[in-house]
Protein backbone atom coordinates (compact mmCIF):
# COMPACT_ATOMS: atom_id res chain seq x y z
CA UNK A 1 0.00 0.00 0.00
CA UNK A 2 1.25 3.43 -0.97
CA UNK A 3 -0.29 6.44 0.72
CA UNK A 4 0.70 10.07 0.14
CA UNK A 5 -0.82 12.84 2.21
CA UNK A 6 -0.46 16.52 1.30
CA UNK A 7 2.92 15.91 -0.24
CA UNK A 8 4.67 19.06 -1.25
CA UNK A 9 8.12 19.23 -2.85
CA UNK A 10 10.05 22.38 -3.60
CA UNK A 11 13.51 21.91 -5.13
CA UNK A 12 16.34 24.14 -3.88
CA UNK A 13 16.12 26.17 -7.11
CA UNK A 14 12.53 27.10 -6.28
CA UNK A 15 10.69 24.73 -8.64
CA UNK A 16 7.61 23.24 -6.98
CA UNK A 17 7.41 19.72 -8.44
CA UNK A 18 4.76 18.37 -6.08
CA UNK A 19 2.11 20.75 -4.94
CA UNK A 20 -0.16 18.95 -2.49
CA UNK A 21 -0.41 15.36 -3.64
CA UNK A 22 -2.93 13.04 -1.98
CA UNK A 23 -3.13 9.52 -3.28
CA UNK A 24 -3.72 5.95 -2.21
CA UNK A 25 -2.49 3.00 -4.22
CA UNK A 26 -3.66 -0.38 -2.99
CA UNK A 27 -1.55 -3.50 -2.93
CA UNK A 28 -1.58 -5.22 -6.32
CA UNK A 29 -2.79 -2.19 -8.26
CA UNK A 30 -1.39 -1.20 -11.67
CA UNK A 31 -1.17 2.57 -12.02
CA UNK A 32 -0.13 4.68 -14.97
CA UNK A 33 1.25 8.12 -14.16
CA UNK A 34 0.90 10.42 -17.15
CA UNK A 35 1.27 14.12 -17.77
CA UNK A 36 3.26 16.60 -19.80
CA UNK A 37 7.03 16.84 -19.70
CA UNK A 38 8.18 18.52 -16.50
CA UNK A 39 4.85 17.94 -14.75
CA UNK A 40 6.40 16.19 -11.76
CA UNK A 41 5.94 12.49 -12.62
CA UNK A 42 9.52 11.53 -11.89
CA UNK A 43 9.52 13.56 -8.71
CA UNK A 44 6.33 11.80 -7.60
CA UNK A 45 8.04 8.47 -8.25
CA UNK A 46 11.42 9.40 -6.73
CA UNK A 47 9.80 10.25 -3.43
CA UNK A 48 8.49 6.67 -3.14
CA UNK A 49 11.92 5.08 -2.92
CA UNK A 50 13.35 8.13 -1.23
CA UNK A 51 15.69 9.41 -3.87
CA UNK A 52 13.96 12.68 -3.07
CA UNK A 53 12.33 13.60 0.23
CA UNK A 54 9.19 15.74 0.29
CA UNK A 55 9.42 19.23 1.70
CA UNK A 56 6.25 18.53 3.67
CA UNK A 57 3.55 15.89 3.84
CA UNK A 58 3.76 12.22 4.65
CA UNK A 59 4.41 9.09 2.62
CA UNK A 60 3.73 5.50 3.69
CA UNK A 61 5.05 2.56 1.65
CA UNK A 62 4.01 -0.93 2.78
CA UNK A 63 3.30 0.58 6.21
CA UNK A 64 6.77 2.12 6.39
CA UNK A 65 6.54 5.79 7.25
CA UNK A 66 9.18 7.50 5.11
CA UNK A 67 9.13 10.63 7.26
CA UNK A 68 10.37 8.80 10.34
CA UNK A 69 12.47 6.20 8.50
CA UNK A 70 16.02 6.28 9.81
CA UNK A 71 18.57 6.55 7.02
CA UNK A 72 20.11 3.24 8.13
CA UNK A 73 16.84 1.55 7.15
CA UNK A 74 16.51 3.15 3.72
CA UNK A 75 18.31 0.26 1.94
CA UNK A 76 15.71 -2.16 3.31
CA UNK A 77 12.90 0.01 1.98
CA UNK A 78 14.55 0.10 -1.43
CA UNK A 79 14.87 -3.67 -1.54
CA UNK A 80 11.11 -3.93 -1.43
CA UNK A 81 10.82 -1.67 -4.45
CA UNK A 82 12.13 -2.44 -7.92
CA UNK A 83 12.87 0.76 -9.81
CA UNK A 84 13.30 1.27 -13.56
CA UNK A 85 15.08 4.60 -13.70
CA UNK A 86 14.37 7.08 -16.46
CA UNK A 87 18.12 7.32 -17.07
CA UNK A 88 18.69 3.57 -16.46
CA UNK A 89 21.40 4.01 -13.78
CA UNK A 90 23.50 0.99 -14.69
CA UNK A 91 26.86 0.37 -13.05
CA UNK A 92 29.40 1.05 -15.83
CA UNK A 93 32.06 -1.34 -14.51
CA UNK A 94 29.72 -4.31 -14.28
CA UNK A 95 28.43 -6.26 -17.24
CA UNK A 96 24.77 -6.91 -17.93
CA UNK A 97 24.68 -10.09 -15.85
CA UNK A 98 26.47 -8.49 -12.91
CA UNK A 99 24.29 -5.39 -13.04
CA UNK A 100 21.20 -7.51 -12.64
CA UNK A 101 22.82 -9.81 -10.09
CA UNK A 102 23.76 -6.80 -7.99
CA UNK A 103 20.16 -6.37 -6.83
CA UNK A 104 20.31 -9.93 -5.50
CA UNK A 105 23.77 -9.62 -3.99
CA UNK A 106 22.71 -6.76 -1.76
CA UNK A 107 20.04 -8.99 -0.23
CA UNK A 108 22.61 -11.77 0.13
CA UNK A 109 20.86 -14.29 -2.05
CA UNK A 110 22.74 -17.58 -2.53
CA UNK A 111 25.01 -17.78 -5.59
CA UNK A 112 22.95 -20.60 -7.02
CA UNK A 113 19.70 -18.67 -6.69
CA UNK A 114 21.36 -15.61 -8.16
CA UNK A 115 22.49 -17.54 -11.22
CA UNK A 116 19.06 -18.99 -11.80
CA UNK A 117 17.08 -15.80 -11.26
CA UNK A 118 19.38 -13.59 -13.31
CA UNK A 119 19.40 -15.95 -16.25
CA UNK A 120 15.62 -16.25 -16.13
CA UNK A 121 15.02 -12.54 -16.09
CA UNK A 122 17.58 -11.86 -18.83
CA UNK A 123 15.78 -14.36 -21.02
CA UNK A 124 12.52 -12.60 -20.22
CA UNK A 125 13.79 -9.22 -21.50
CA UNK A 126 15.64 -10.81 -24.42
CA UNK A 127 19.21 -10.08 -23.35
CA UNK A 128 20.59 -13.58 -22.83
CA UNK A 129 22.98 -13.03 -25.74
CA UNK A 130 24.32 -9.82 -24.25
CA UNK A 131 24.86 -10.98 -20.67
CA UNK A 132 28.62 -10.45 -20.82
CA UNK A 133 28.50 -7.01 -22.43
CA UNK A 134 29.03 -3.75 -20.57
CA UNK A 135 26.51 -0.89 -20.47
CA UNK A 136 28.54 1.30 -22.84
CA UNK A 137 28.40 -1.49 -25.40
CA UNK A 138 24.62 -1.56 -25.41
CA UNK A 139 22.05 0.33 -27.42
CA UNK A 140 19.69 2.67 -25.60
CA UNK A 141 16.86 0.14 -25.62
CA UNK A 142 19.11 -2.65 -24.40
CA UNK A 143 20.23 -0.54 -21.46
CA UNK A 144 16.63 0.17 -20.64
CA UNK A 145 15.87 -3.54 -20.64
CA UNK A 146 18.77 -4.21 -18.26
CA UNK A 147 17.28 -1.64 -15.91
CA UNK A 148 13.91 -3.38 -16.20
CA UNK A 149 15.46 -6.79 -15.55
CA UNK A 150 17.21 -5.50 -12.46
CA UNK A 151 14.01 -3.94 -11.12
CA UNK A 152 12.06 -7.21 -11.19
CA UNK A 153 14.75 -9.79 -10.49
CA UNK A 154 14.27 -9.94 -6.72
CA UNK A 155 10.46 -10.17 -7.00
CA UNK A 156 9.81 -6.90 -5.13
CA UNK A 157 6.39 -6.10 -3.71
CA UNK A 158 6.33 -2.85 -5.67
CA UNK A 159 7.77 -2.06 -9.09
CA UNK A 160 8.17 1.59 -10.01
CA UNK A 161 9.00 2.27 -13.63
CA UNK A 162 9.82 5.71 -14.99
CA UNK A 163 9.11 5.60 -18.72
CA UNK A 164 10.28 2.01 -19.13
CA UNK A 165 9.48 1.98 -22.86
CA UNK A 166 10.89 5.38 -23.82
CA UNK A 167 13.77 3.85 -25.77
CA UNK A 168 12.03 0.72 -26.97
CA UNK A 169 10.41 -0.09 -30.28
CA UNK A 170 6.67 -0.90 -30.14
CA UNK A 171 7.14 -4.67 -30.29
CA UNK A 172 9.61 -4.76 -27.46
CA UNK A 173 7.43 -2.33 -25.54
CA UNK A 174 4.50 -4.73 -25.75
CA UNK A 175 6.73 -7.57 -24.60
CA UNK A 176 7.79 -5.55 -21.59
CA UNK A 177 4.17 -4.67 -20.86
CA UNK A 178 3.33 -8.36 -20.94
CA UNK A 179 5.98 -8.95 -18.30
CA UNK A 180 4.60 -6.17 -16.12
CA UNK A 181 1.08 -7.53 -16.52
CA UNK A 182 2.28 -10.95 -15.53
CA UNK A 183 4.05 -9.88 -12.34
CA UNK A 184 1.12 -7.60 -11.53
CA UNK A 185 -1.21 -10.56 -11.82
CA UNK A 186 0.92 -12.28 -9.18
CA UNK A 187 0.16 -9.44 -6.77
CA UNK A 188 2.94 -6.95 -7.38
CA UNK A 189 1.96 -3.30 -7.23
CA UNK A 190 3.09 -1.44 -10.35
CA UNK A 191 3.47 2.30 -10.73
CA UNK A 192 4.53 3.33 -14.20
CA UNK A 193 5.15 6.82 -15.52
CA UNK A 194 4.71 6.82 -19.27
CA UNK A 195 4.10 8.90 -22.37
CA UNK A 196 2.95 5.92 -24.38
CA UNK A 197 -0.64 6.74 -25.26
CA UNK A 198 -1.20 3.54 -27.20
CA UNK A 199 -0.24 1.34 -24.27
CA UNK A 200 -2.28 3.32 -21.76
CA UNK A 201 -5.30 3.22 -23.97
CA UNK A 202 -4.96 -0.45 -24.85
CA UNK A 203 -4.04 -2.10 -21.57
CA UNK A 204 -6.49 -0.35 -19.35
CA UNK A 205 -5.54 0.43 -15.76
CA UNK A 206 -5.87 3.22 -13.28
CA UNK A 207 -4.49 6.47 -14.73
CA UNK A 208 -3.16 9.27 -12.54
CA UNK A 209 -2.64 12.52 -14.40
CA UNK A 210 -0.03 14.87 -12.98
CA UNK A 211 0.08 18.46 -14.14
CA UNK A 212 2.10 21.22 -12.52
CA UNK A 213 2.86 19.04 -9.53
CA UNK A 214 -0.77 18.27 -8.84
CA UNK A 215 -2.99 15.27 -9.54
CA UNK A 216 -5.57 16.66 -11.91
CA UNK A 217 -7.32 13.41 -12.77
CA UNK A 218 -7.38 9.95 -11.23
CA UNK A 219 -9.47 7.35 -13.04
CA UNK A 220 -9.72 3.60 -12.82
CA UNK A 221 -9.70 2.13 -16.33
CA UNK A 222 -8.73 5.60 -17.57
CA UNK A 223 -7.35 6.69 -20.93
CA UNK A 224 -4.27 8.73 -21.82
CA UNK A 225 -5.01 12.40 -21.93
CA UNK A 226 -5.02 15.68 -20.07
CA UNK A 227 -5.78 19.30 -20.80
CA UNK A 228 -2.78 21.53 -21.25
Amino acid at each position, binding site marked *: MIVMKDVYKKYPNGVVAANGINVKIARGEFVYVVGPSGAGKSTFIKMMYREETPTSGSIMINSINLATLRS*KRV*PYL*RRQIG*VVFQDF*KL*LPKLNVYENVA*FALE*VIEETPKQIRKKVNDVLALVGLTQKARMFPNELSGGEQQRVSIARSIVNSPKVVIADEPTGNLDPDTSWDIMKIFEQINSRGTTIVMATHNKEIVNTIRHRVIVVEGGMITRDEYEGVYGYES
Partner: protein
Amino acid sequence: MTFASVSAVTVTLLLVGVFIVIMMNLNQLADNIENDVEIKVITDPAADVEDVKLLKKEVQETAGVATVIYSSRDEELDKMISSFGDELNLYKQSNPLGDALYVKASNPHETAEVAAEIGTYDHIYQVVYGEGKIEKLFNVLTMSRNVGLALILALLFTAMFLISNTIRLTIVARGKEIEIMKLVGATNSFVRIPFVLEGIWLGVLGSLIPMGVISFAYYELYTQWEPKLQNELFQLLSATPFIFQVNALLLFMGVFIGIWGSFMSVRKFLRV
Protein backbone atom coordinates in the same frame (compact mmCIF):
# COMPACT_ATOMS: atom_id res chain seq x y z
CA MET B 1 42.84 5.75 -11.89
CA THR B 2 44.32 2.94 -9.89
CA PHE B 3 47.66 3.72 -11.46
CA ALA B 4 47.40 7.29 -10.24
CA SER B 5 46.78 6.18 -6.67
CA VAL B 6 49.40 3.48 -6.61
CA SER B 7 52.04 5.70 -8.14
CA ALA B 8 51.21 8.49 -5.71
CA VAL B 9 51.64 6.09 -2.83
CA THR B 10 54.83 4.75 -4.37
CA VAL B 11 56.67 8.00 -4.92
CA THR B 12 55.58 9.53 -1.66
CA LEU B 13 56.49 6.52 0.44
CA LEU B 14 59.78 6.21 -1.39
CA LEU B 15 60.58 9.77 -0.47
CA VAL B 16 59.39 9.30 3.09
CA GLY B 17 61.46 6.13 3.37
CA VAL B 18 64.62 7.80 2.13
CA PHE B 19 64.09 10.63 4.55
CA ILE B 20 63.49 8.33 7.44
CA VAL B 21 66.67 6.42 6.66
CA ILE B 22 68.70 9.60 6.42
CA MET B 23 67.19 11.14 9.50
CA MET B 24 67.64 8.05 11.64
CA ASN B 25 71.27 7.84 10.64
CA LEU B 26 71.87 11.51 11.26
CA ASN B 27 70.23 11.07 14.61
CA GLN B 28 72.73 8.33 15.27
CA LEU B 29 75.50 10.71 14.26
CA ALA B 30 74.16 13.32 16.64
CA ASP B 31 74.19 10.69 19.38
CA ASN B 32 77.77 9.86 18.59
CA ILE B 33 78.79 13.49 18.61
CA GLU B 34 77.11 14.00 21.95
CA ASN B 35 78.80 10.94 23.32
CA ASP B 36 82.12 12.26 22.16
CA VAL B 37 82.05 15.08 24.69
CA GLU B 38 84.79 14.57 27.27
CA ILE B 39 85.92 16.07 30.54
CA LYS B 40 89.67 16.35 30.80
CA VAL B 41 90.88 15.99 34.37
CA ILE B 42 94.46 17.21 34.76
CA THR B 43 96.09 15.77 37.88
CA ASP B 44 98.40 17.65 40.13
CA PRO B 45 101.94 17.14 38.65
CA ALA B 46 103.02 16.53 42.27
CA ALA B 47 100.65 13.54 42.71
CA ASP B 48 102.28 10.13 42.59
CA VAL B 49 101.17 7.05 40.67
CA GLU B 50 99.16 5.65 43.60
CA ASP B 51 97.30 8.93 44.09
CA VAL B 52 96.31 8.99 40.43
CA LYS B 53 95.18 5.37 40.59
CA LEU B 54 92.95 6.16 43.57
CA LEU B 55 91.66 9.29 41.87
CA LYS B 56 90.81 7.28 38.78
CA LYS B 57 88.89 4.79 40.89
CA GLU B 58 87.09 7.59 42.71
CA VAL B 59 86.14 9.27 39.42
CA GLN B 60 84.97 5.97 38.01
CA GLU B 61 82.63 5.52 40.93
CA THR B 62 81.17 9.01 40.66
CA ALA B 63 77.46 8.99 39.81
CA GLY B 64 76.85 9.82 36.16
CA VAL B 65 80.29 8.81 34.92
CA ALA B 66 80.35 6.37 32.04
CA THR B 67 84.00 5.86 31.11
CA VAL B 68 87.37 7.02 32.36
CA ILE B 69 90.50 6.79 30.25
CA TYR B 70 93.95 7.37 31.67
CA SER B 71 96.61 9.24 29.72
CA SER B 72 100.09 9.57 31.23
CA ARG B 73 101.94 12.88 31.45
CA ASP B 74 104.27 11.75 28.67
CA GLU B 75 101.40 10.99 26.34
CA GLU B 76 100.00 14.42 27.13
CA LEU B 77 103.30 16.06 26.24
CA ASP B 78 103.32 14.25 22.90
CA LYS B 79 99.85 15.60 22.14
CA MET B 80 101.00 19.11 23.00
CA ILE B 81 104.03 18.82 20.80
CA SER B 82 102.03 17.63 17.84
CA SER B 83 99.77 20.65 17.95
CA PHE B 84 102.20 23.37 19.00
CA GLY B 85 105.36 22.44 17.23
CA ASP B 86 108.40 20.27 17.61
CA GLU B 87 110.36 22.91 19.46
CA LEU B 88 108.61 21.77 22.62
CA ASN B 89 110.59 18.55 22.46
CA LEU B 90 113.09 20.11 24.82
CA TYR B 91 110.55 19.69 27.63
CA LYS B 92 110.82 15.97 27.38
CA GLN B 93 113.70 16.15 29.79
CA SER B 94 111.59 17.65 32.54
CA ASN B 95 107.91 17.18 31.75
CA PRO B 96 105.94 19.93 33.48
CA LEU B 97 102.55 18.35 32.81
CA GLY B 98 100.39 16.16 35.04
CA ASP B 99 98.64 12.92 34.09
CA ALA B 100 95.20 13.28 32.57
CA LEU B 101 91.93 11.42 32.90
CA TYR B 102 89.46 11.63 30.04
CA VAL B 103 85.97 11.22 31.46
CA LYS B 104 82.67 10.71 29.66
CA ALA B 105 79.36 11.30 31.36
CA SER B 106 76.73 8.63 30.84
CA ASN B 107 74.33 11.42 29.93
CA PRO B 108 76.32 13.95 27.91
CA HIS B 109 73.93 16.70 28.92
CA GLU B 110 75.08 16.29 32.55
CA THR B 111 78.71 16.91 31.70
CA ALA B 112 78.79 20.18 33.61
CA GLU B 113 77.48 18.64 36.84
CA VAL B 114 79.86 15.70 36.63
CA ALA B 115 82.78 18.04 36.01
CA ALA B 116 81.86 20.14 39.04
CA GLU B 117 81.62 17.06 41.23
CA ILE B 118 85.01 15.79 40.11
CA GLY B 119 86.51 19.23 40.68
CA THR B 120 86.03 18.76 44.44
CA TYR B 121 88.31 15.70 44.61
CA ASP B 122 91.92 15.72 45.82
CA HIS B 123 95.07 15.64 43.68
CA ILE B 124 93.43 17.57 40.94
CA TYR B 125 95.16 20.44 39.23
CA GLN B 126 92.38 21.45 36.84
CA VAL B 127 89.17 20.13 35.28
CA VAL B 128 88.77 21.23 31.68
CA TYR B 129 85.79 20.74 29.40
CA GLY B 130 84.11 22.65 26.60
CA GLU B 131 81.88 24.59 28.99
CA GLY B 132 80.11 27.22 26.84
CA LYS B 133 81.09 25.38 23.68
CA ILE B 134 79.42 22.16 24.72
CA GLU B 135 76.18 23.87 25.55
CA LYS B 136 76.31 25.53 22.15
CA LEU B 137 76.98 22.23 20.46
CA PHE B 138 74.09 20.62 22.31
CA ASN B 139 71.83 23.47 21.32
CA VAL B 140 72.77 23.05 17.69
CA LEU B 141 72.25 19.30 17.87
CA THR B 142 68.91 19.60 19.63
CA MET B 143 67.81 22.17 17.11
CA SER B 144 68.83 20.07 14.14
CA ARG B 145 67.06 17.08 15.58
CA ASN B 146 63.91 19.07 16.10
CA VAL B 147 64.10 20.55 12.64
CA GLY B 148 64.71 17.07 11.25
CA LEU B 149 61.78 15.66 13.15
CA ALA B 150 59.57 18.54 12.07
CA LEU B 151 60.60 17.98 8.46
CA ILE B 152 59.91 14.28 8.58
CA LEU B 153 56.54 14.87 10.20
CA ALA B 154 55.73 17.52 7.62
CA LEU B 155 56.72 15.11 4.90
CA LEU B 156 54.61 12.37 6.44
CA PHE B 157 51.57 14.57 6.65
CA THR B 158 52.10 15.84 3.15
CA ALA B 159 52.37 12.28 1.96
CA MET B 160 49.21 11.26 3.77
CA PHE B 161 47.36 14.28 2.53
CA LEU B 162 48.44 13.78 -1.06
CA ILE B 163 47.75 10.09 -1.13
CA SER B 164 44.33 10.37 0.42
CA ASN B 165 43.70 13.26 -1.93
CA THR B 166 44.47 11.01 -4.86
CA ILE B 167 42.38 8.15 -3.53
CA ARG B 168 39.56 10.54 -2.87
CA LEU B 169 39.67 11.81 -6.41
CA THR B 170 39.55 8.32 -7.85
CA ILE B 171 36.52 7.66 -5.71
CA VAL B 172 34.89 10.98 -6.50
CA ALA B 173 35.03 9.84 -10.08
CA ARG B 174 32.96 6.90 -8.93
CA GLY B 175 30.42 8.89 -6.95
CA LYS B 176 27.72 8.06 -9.49
CA GLU B 177 28.40 4.35 -9.02
CA ILE B 178 28.08 4.59 -5.27
CA GLU B 179 24.86 6.51 -5.67
CA ILE B 180 23.45 3.83 -7.97
CA MET B 181 24.43 1.06 -5.57
CA LYS B 182 22.62 2.82 -2.78
CA LEU B 183 19.54 3.37 -4.92
CA VAL B 184 19.42 -0.34 -5.69
CA GLY B 185 19.31 -1.13 -1.97
CA ALA B 186 22.92 -1.60 -0.90
CA THR B 187 23.76 -0.75 2.71
CA ASN B 188 26.61 1.58 3.53
CA SER B 189 28.90 -1.20 4.63
CA PHE B 190 28.13 -3.23 1.50
CA VAL B 191 29.21 -0.28 -0.63
CA ARG B 192 32.19 0.52 1.54
CA ILE B 193 33.82 -2.89 1.83
CA PRO B 194 35.09 -3.19 -1.75
CA PHE B 195 36.44 0.34 -1.64
CA VAL B 196 38.25 -0.25 1.64
CA LEU B 197 39.68 -3.50 0.30
CA GLU B 198 40.81 -1.61 -2.74
CA GLY B 199 42.39 0.98 -0.45
CA ILE B 200 44.35 -1.72 1.36
CA TRP B 201 45.38 -3.17 -1.95
CA LEU B 202 46.49 0.24 -3.20
CA GLY B 203 48.48 0.79 -0.02
CA VAL B 204 50.20 -2.59 -0.21
CA LEU B 205 50.91 -2.23 -3.91
CA GLY B 206 52.18 1.29 -3.44
CA SER B 207 54.55 0.38 -0.62
CA LEU B 208 56.14 -2.60 -2.39
CA ILE B 209 58.53 -0.61 -4.57
CA PRO B 210 59.63 1.77 -1.80
CA MET B 211 60.22 -1.19 0.51
CA GLY B 212 62.22 -3.05 -2.10
CA VAL B 213 64.25 -0.07 -3.22
CA ILE B 214 65.08 1.11 0.27
CA SER B 215 65.94 -2.36 1.56
CA PHE B 216 68.22 -3.05 -1.37
CA ALA B 217 69.83 0.37 -1.39
CA TYR B 218 70.43 0.44 2.34
CA TYR B 219 71.79 -3.06 2.40
CA GLU B 220 74.22 -2.22 -0.40
CA LEU B 221 75.21 1.02 1.27
CA TYR B 222 75.69 -0.69 4.57
CA THR B 223 77.81 -3.56 3.33
CA GLN B 224 79.94 -1.20 1.25
CA TRP B 225 80.46 1.58 3.75
CA GLU B 226 80.31 0.00 7.14
CA PRO B 227 83.89 -1.38 6.97
CA LYS B 228 85.24 1.99 5.88
CA LEU B 229 83.47 3.79 8.68
CA GLN B 230 84.89 1.50 11.39
CA ASN B 231 86.80 4.25 13.14
CA GLU B 232 84.74 7.26 12.18
CA LEU B 233 82.40 9.32 14.29
CA PHE B 234 79.64 8.59 11.81
CA GLN B 235 78.30 5.05 11.93
CA LEU B 236 75.53 3.54 9.79
CA LEU B 237 72.70 1.92 11.69
CA SER B 238 73.06 -1.83 11.55
CA ALA B 239 71.17 -3.10 8.49
CA THR B 240 69.22 -6.01 9.86
CA PRO B 241 66.74 -4.73 12.37
CA PHE B 242 66.69 -1.27 10.82
CA ILE B 243 65.59 -2.36 7.36
CA PHE B 244 62.77 -4.42 8.82
CA GLN B 245 61.63 -1.54 10.99
CA VAL B 246 61.58 0.86 8.06
CA ASN B 247 59.73 -1.68 5.91
CA ALA B 248 57.14 -2.29 8.58
CA LEU B 249 56.65 1.44 8.95
CA LEU B 250 56.25 1.95 5.21
CA LEU B 251 53.81 -0.93 4.83
CA PHE B 252 51.81 0.24 7.81
CA MET B 253 51.65 3.76 6.44
CA GLY B 254 50.63 2.58 2.99
CA VAL B 255 47.84 0.38 4.30
CA PHE B 256 46.69 2.90 6.86
CA ILE B 257 46.51 5.68 4.31
CA GLY B 258 44.78 3.39 1.84
CA ILE B 259 42.07 2.41 4.30
CA TRP B 260 41.67 5.86 5.69
CA GLY B 261 41.57 7.52 2.26
CA SER B 262 38.89 5.15 0.97
CA PHE B 263 36.88 5.37 4.12
CA MET B 264 36.83 9.14 4.16
CA SER B 265 36.11 9.46 0.48
CA VAL B 266 33.30 6.95 0.27
CA ARG B 267 31.58 8.54 3.24
CA LYS B 268 30.76 11.61 1.23
CA PHE B 269 28.70 9.65 -1.26
CA LEU B 270 26.82 7.40 1.10
CA ARG B 271 24.24 10.04 1.92
CA VAL B 272 21.86 9.05 -0.85
